[in-house]
């Protein structure tokens, strides 16, 4: 048994909220630089170079990369040998978000009730996903999610008879409909299988994978590659103003499902795709 004090979690989450919003992660940085080198449209290249300039200004002058600093999505993978002390885990996470968004000059974008819509003024609560795993460490991933792209995400409850072609069509449809709204070039997170909520969660978690990494299952990897090519053939391009780089990566996660079902969730993220992971 290993003891972790929840105050450590608060401190790390505060720092991670700030880091994610001011500095592009290394994997996303590499993907964006690669995009500049392969984009064929002149306006597309101009937009990608503006996004490079934007990243430099963000880090140098400490201005958030995007004004939509997101709703904080936090994944906690808690080793079952870990013992937490010093307070409630949920409170510790939300306190980290509160401190990060307040002290980090990040936008407060969360409303207390979906219909009454009063701003909570400190960007809490976070959306927290807990997972109990092997070992004595705690892995925290903070992924602040902007809603320009979140709003364009989709879930499709397909029939088994729709098969792999139906799945590909669903993903392409979601990306085409998202178009300029989702701040392309985007990262496309996909969940296939499980239940309604399981496939949505897989799609979200897929966005936190190292950008451009592939699934281990050969046919899933092949689908990721084929879909990236097809998505980039849609012509949407950087900013949705035409071009050959519409997506930077397609990440697909799969899970066993029911004999009657084929759920597919598509969670779309913009070109910032913020995600920071730390292991305590």
């Amino acid at each position, binding site marked *: 048994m290993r003891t972790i004090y929840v105050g450590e979690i608060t401190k790390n989450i505060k720092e991670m909220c700030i880091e994610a919003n001011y500095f592009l992660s290394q994997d996303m940085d590499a993907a964006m630089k690669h995009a500049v080198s392969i984009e064929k449209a002149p306006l597309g290249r101009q937009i990608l170079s503006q996004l490079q300039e934007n990243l430099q*200004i963000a880090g140098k002058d400490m201005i*958030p*990369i995007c004004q939509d600093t997101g709703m904080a999505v936090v994944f906690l993978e808690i080793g079952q040998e870990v013992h937490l002390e010093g307070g409630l885990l949920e409170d510790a996470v939300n306190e980290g978000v509160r401190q990060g968004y307040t002290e980090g000059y*990040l936008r407060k974008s969360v409303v207390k009730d979906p219909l009454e819509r009063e701003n909570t003024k400190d960007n809490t609560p976070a959306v927290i996903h807990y997972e109990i795993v092997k070992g004595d460490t705690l892995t925290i991933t903070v992924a602040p999610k902007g809603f320009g792209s979140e709003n364009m995400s989709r879930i499709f409850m397909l029939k088994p008879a729709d098969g792999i072609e139906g799945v590909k069509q669903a993903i392409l449809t979601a990306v085409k409909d998202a178009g300029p709204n989702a701040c392309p070039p985007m990262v496309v997170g996909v969940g296939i299988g499980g239940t309604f909520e399981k496939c949505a969660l897989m799609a979200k978690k897929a966005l936190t994978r190292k950008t451009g990494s592939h699934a281990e299952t050969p046919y899933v990897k092949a689908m990721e590659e084929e879909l990236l090519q*097809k998505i980039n053939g849609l012509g949407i391009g950087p900013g949705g103003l035409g071009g050959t780089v519409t997506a930077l990566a397609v990440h697909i996660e799969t899970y066993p499902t029911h004999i009657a079902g084929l759920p597919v969730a598509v969670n779309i993220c913009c070109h910032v795709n913020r995600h920071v992971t730390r292991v305590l």
Partner: protein
Amino acid sequence: MDKHIHTPMTEKKARELRAGDYVYITGTIYTARDAAHKRMQETLAAGERLPIDVRDAIIYYMGPSPAREGRPIGSAGPTTASRMDKYAPKLLSLGLRGMIGKGKRSSEVLEAICANGAVYFAAVGGAGALLSKSIVASELVAYEDLGTEAIRRLEVVDFPVIVVADTEGNNLYETAIKEYASQTTV
């Protein structure tokens, strides 16, 4: 084509712009997004005056991140315009001349743009740090309780935007995508 315009944006200036033009705006623009548009609609429905004069004005769909000490504004990029589609035709009928945002508009808005002689501009989504450099002053005008969604008056210098929808009914999102589409079936 690169063009420079100064506010106020008259109908004549709007009619000279074409989809695909790269435009640098200098002068005064206003911010308003979801909640401020809802309030403005309620104000008009109650027969009261709007807190800003929308005639020949440009509204920027944007809610900034907080400004650090000594700076006019924080990160300041566009939000998705389609959420304001419900409210835009009424404001266009009152003389609103320009809207800055990102993403597609409804057919009702595109028709109102043509009918009233206005323009829809896109700013680069996710370039809030870069765009903030073109904003030299920011002043709260109305609805302070809405926080980031309050209406602000911005002074901008060479604020970079691209004309998406013009007075002739051209739509850059549709034409530019066709040019680079090799995947025509979905």
